[in-house]
């Protein structure tokens, strides 16, 4: 009898069985067990409204966890707070408690809740309404977003006690029409910002400015609301909250919620080709582990990094366990599913009808799906914080849970799987924002001026406001009268400013083989090299040729083909340093930070035969040059150090090093890998030396390069550790890159270049 087809009593028992299987255990590089943690509670503070106490009792809440009580007290003391606790620790009560308490005392009080997505907003409304019903209190809670029917909007504006919305809606619909929201803004007591960690990078920088505008409107109506924030674990929750809302914030992180024992297992798929450093597919291995768990009756969530992977894993899993479980008990979950379907899946997970779910990070945020028993991560989610968030989906208050991290072959995954200390030994990433990015700031200044005129002495962000306002006046956007600046333009500025712009401007790919069908998307920055005309575009293993690229309309028209080559485009990137702001030299290395202009233009593409990789033809690409003014950080090697090797070797060494750094940088910055770029140059125009440049891929920069400049030492140290720790012989995709790219000696060249700088420093 195969013990694996048996239902097990508990996760502990299942893990016991797992440990007895050497063919699996030999791929486990690391096994960490977090002991169970008991609850720490205090009684509900005596000053909480009795109706609320009664309702909580009814829900089975007789005591509060320490962090819930602490946050209630801090709010009562009039402070802005940020609560940081893991998934499923009763975080929402930290802000709902003071809000409901206040509303019970004062019917005219108002609160505004902000969530990054619509789905989270709807969850929240259901929870608040349940509480209001229990108390038989007339507390009106409404979502206000793009789906809200126009007929009820007015009622919400006038009578909603709690308005639940998202930053985009606040930016484009509520603030520019604040005169319709007089009741809300005159009486607003609390602003709730949940999932604070989601507001980072460009998006976070925009949101910080939306909050500056929100505070301005509140001041106009004579109110001074308290901000109650909640965040998943990040390294700098307090600093992040303070930057985002521009106020001093009290940090509440004394987590009093209980947790069962938690196992974190790192799993590295076995190597199948040592020379090329190729491992067995992480998708297949993830699928294997998930199937084992599901067959044993353990409720499991699988996270995959892309939508396509979700679909592949789902198909495999449904096929694999169709004899044990019905197809309906394993579901997919990702953006692009309709809300109704999502609700159905969430419900199924909560009541246990659905035994397994394969999801993108859409389920990482606080959508209520109850607590599962096991979690399989197909590939490292990209940040330590995300990993903990996702793994937090498994873990009940009693009983054990397990998370598998199945590494893919990319350098970051391989670095982590081989350096588990890195993962456990350090706090999660920082959330960075740069609200004073000039372009973002100017955009929101326009919106703010549209909402209310500016006056001499007003503040908005860190730059000198008068200069900015004068600039906008010269551009004939504002009109100055005495010491006031008024909006004087026909446009509605919020409409042309999207908070999530950078990553959202996608090109759609339209297959016209048989009618017109959208088969995929490519982000704007990748478009010139991936879907230029005549490019071969691969989608789900099928080859398509791009027939027409409509650049202004952001559409690529493709047709299915069957050819024996792929295309590879050359992107000529020219980088000009405009201004050096910071610099320092240590040993053979000089590093600098400043403003740069990046000009990127695709030049030609090559046709490369499959398997043999011989060049069988080429063609020009006619696309406009993209110019980007941004901030950058770069380091260059001394002439002495570079003189030790030939130009060609230097090229390979730089390339190899750049390949490693581009994977490590997003890890440190907690940013999207697309937000930061790396360019190696053997003889840079600015320094005349071999140089590696990093730049923020957002106009004006968003503080990423600056952070890297500060973390320079750490970054290089880890790059060295990653290269050395890689099991390949002479370079592989998991470290400096494949030997086709960096040559047979690439790995050693990169390493020696790195070591050379460390010895001489």
């Amino acid at each position, binding site marked *: 009898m195969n013990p694996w087809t048996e239902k097990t009593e508990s996760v502990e028992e299942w893990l016991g069985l797992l440990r007895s299987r050497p063919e699996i255990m030999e791929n486990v590089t690391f096994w960490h067990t977090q002991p169970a943690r008991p609850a720490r509670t205090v009684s509900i503070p005596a000053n909480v409204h009795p109706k609320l106490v009664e309702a909580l009792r009814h829900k089975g809440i007789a005591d509060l966890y320490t962090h819930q009580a602490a946050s209630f007290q801090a709010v009562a003391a009039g402070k802005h707070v940020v609560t940081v606790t893991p998934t499923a620790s009763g975080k929402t009560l930290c802000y709902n408690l003071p809000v409901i308490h206040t509303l019970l005392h004062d019917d005219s009080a108002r609160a505004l809740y902000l969530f990054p997505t619509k789905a989270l907003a709807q969850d929240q409304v259901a929870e608040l309404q349940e509480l209001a019903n229990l108390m038989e209190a007339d507390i009106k809670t409404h979502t206000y977003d793009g789906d809200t029917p126009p007929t009820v909007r007015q009622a919400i504006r006038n009578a909603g006690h709690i308005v639940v919305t998202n930053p985009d809606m606040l930016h484009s619909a509520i603030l520019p029409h604040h005169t319709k929201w007089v009741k809300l803004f005159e009486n607003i007591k609390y602003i709730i910002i949940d999932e604070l960690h989601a507001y980072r990078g460009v998006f976070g920088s925009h949101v910080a400015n939306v909050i500056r505008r929100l505070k301005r409107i509140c001041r106009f109506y004579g109110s001074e609301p308290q901000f109650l924030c909640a965040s998943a674990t990040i390294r700098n929750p307090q600093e992040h909250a303070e930057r985002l809302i521009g106020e001093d914030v009290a940090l509440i992180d004394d987590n009093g919620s209980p947790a069962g024992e938690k196992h974190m297992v790192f799993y590295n798929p076995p190597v199948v080709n040592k020379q090329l450093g190729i491992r067995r597919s992480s998708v297949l291995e993830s699928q294997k582990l998930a199937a084992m768990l599901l067959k044993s009756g353990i409720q499991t969530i699988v996270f995959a990094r892309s939508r396509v992977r979700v679909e592949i894993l789902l198909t495999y899993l449904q096929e694999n366990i169709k004899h044990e479980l019905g197809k309906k008990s394993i579901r997919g979950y990702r953006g692009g599913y309709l809300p109704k379907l999502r609700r159905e899946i969430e419900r199924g997970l909560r009541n246990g009808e659905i035994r397994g779910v394969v999801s993108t990070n859409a389920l990482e945020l606080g959508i209520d799906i109850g607590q599962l028993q096991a979690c399989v991560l197909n590939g490292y989610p990209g940040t330590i914080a995300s990993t903990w968030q996702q793994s937090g989906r498994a873990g009940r208050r009693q009983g054990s849970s397990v998370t598998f991290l199945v590494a893919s072959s990319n350098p970051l995954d391989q670095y982590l799987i081989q350096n588990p200390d890195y993962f456990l030994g350090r706090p999660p990433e920082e959330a960075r924002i740069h609200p004073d990015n*000039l372009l973002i700031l100017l955009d929101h200044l326009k919106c703010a001026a549209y909402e209310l005129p500016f006056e001499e002495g007003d503040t908005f962000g860190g*730059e000198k406001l008068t*200069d900015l306002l004068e600039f906008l006046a010269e551009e*004939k956007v504002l*009109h100055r009268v005495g010491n006031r600046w008024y909006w004087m333009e026909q446009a*509605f500025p919020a409409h042309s400013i999207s908070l999530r712009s950078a990553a959202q401007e996608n090109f759609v790919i339209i297959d016209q083989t048989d009618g017109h069908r959208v088969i995929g998307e490519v982000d704007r920055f990748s478009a010139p090299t991936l879907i230029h005309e005549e490019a071969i575009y691969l989608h789900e293993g099928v080859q398509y040729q791009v027939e027409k690229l409509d650049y202004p309309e952001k559409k690529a028209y493709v047709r299915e083909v069957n050819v024996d080559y792929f295309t590879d485009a050359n992107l000529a990137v020219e980088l000009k340093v405009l201004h050096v702001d910071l610099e320092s030299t240590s040993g053979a290395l000089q590093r600098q930070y400043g403003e740069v202009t990046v000009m990127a233009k695709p030049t030609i593409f090559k046709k490369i035969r499959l398997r043999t990789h011989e060049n069988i033809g080429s063609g020009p690409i006619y696309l406009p040059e993209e110019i980007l003014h941004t901030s950058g950080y770069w380091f260059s090697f001394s002439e002495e150090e570079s003189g030790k090797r030939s130009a060609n070797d230097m090229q390979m060494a730089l390339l190899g090093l750049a390949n490693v750094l581009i994977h490590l940088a997003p890890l440190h910055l907690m940013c999207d890998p697309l937000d930061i770029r790396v360019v190696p140059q053997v003889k840079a125009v600015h320094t005349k030396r071999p140089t590696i440049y990093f730049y923020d891929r957002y106009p004006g920069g968003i503080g990423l390069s600056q952070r890297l400049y500060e973390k320079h030492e750490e970054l290089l140290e880890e790059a060295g550790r990653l290269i050395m720790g890689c099991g390949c012989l002479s370079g592989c995709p998991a470290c400096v890159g494949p030997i086709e790219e960096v040559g047979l000696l690439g790995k050693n060249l990169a390493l020696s270049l790195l070591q050379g700088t460390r010895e001489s420093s």
Partner: protein
Amino acid sequence: MSGLRERLERLRAQSPEVAAESIQAETTVSAKSEEHLLHADFRHIGVELKSNENGQFLLRRIVYPFPYRHGRYELAELREGASHLSPIAMRQNQNSEPIDANKLLFLDTETTGLGVGTGNVPFMVGFGYYTERAFVVEQTLIRHPGEEKAMLSYLLGHMKDKSHLVTYNGRTFDWPVLVNRFILNGWRRSGPEPGHLDFLHPSRALWRNTLPSCRLSIVEEERLGIQREHDVPGSMAPALYFQYLSDHNPIHLHGVYAHNEKDVLTLASLAVHFGKLLGGISRDAEDEGPEGEELFRTACWLEKHGNTESAERLFDLLGDREELGDGSGWSLALAARYKRAGQHERALPLWRKSAEKAENSALPKLDAHVELAIYYEHRDKQLLTALTYAEKALELAHMRARLSRDSASRNEEKEALLRRVTRLRDKVSRERM
């Protein structure tokens, strides 16, 4: 970090389309010195400087002593006819005072942008009202946004003894924009909202299908006999005002003043028109013989506003028409109305005429045939005639299907017809046996 100015300059270079020419410093200075002395080009058109406790603004006041004719109508006619407008007010307001011409404020704003967001500024507010002997138009203008409060308080003063705002789309545009400004200037709503007589809605009800658009300029030209010469279109107003803001030359605004003034006059003229229609005084619907479609819309509108007598008269007039005219959509609607009222004998000729028209059309409608088939099958019991119409309808349906490449809804229609034809054939053959 390089200087902010420097970085701003670089941004400017980045977006050539916004690289604007720098402002002429001298004009700004010269404008300043004229703060107290109004520019001659303002005075030429009768604009004066006005002050109140909230500051200064400009005012232009034009008096039109009676009799004054604007287009087809004598404006004084409203003094008797205003009460006929009550049904419109009843439909547009929850409860409405009776309409008295002396308590109407005819209002039209010129704004810096579109939409009702907080950044859209009404830089000119024109309003008109009746006095004993004249119709008066007043136009307030702000030379810059700082004068807004003074202008708004002046407007509020004029609203005090008025019961209704007479506007064109004012309920959803002009008034909400003004409400924004009141709130932004620190005033809160107190007392009842003004009543509305928004003429956009009745205009749409009457002319939706017969005028190319229901813009005020089209309506006045086509239906009120008003010709404007050298009119500056309203859409140009913001750009002209911005021009004035940058060089302080009042010439740019002359056209805007004229346009706004005419708009206010037209509102009064339109009020006369609607008052006459509702009061049953206007016979021009009959006299001038407008298209059937418009006559029908007018009749429906009158009926909806409680004037059944005039409505019936128009419906009768339509029913007796020999020719259906081009837009004959109304004839089926009118026939349906007769059918509902059990007056089949009145519906019958309309259906017949429509059916005849359909058979000669390249894009036939088959509704009339279907109605006739139903009528002859169930009412008149002439099964053969019913069958003839049903078969003809089926033929037309096939023709339509060919033209529209067979959509699903057409299929349903055809199937229903097919069933009808089969049933009728059965009945006919049974009858013959």
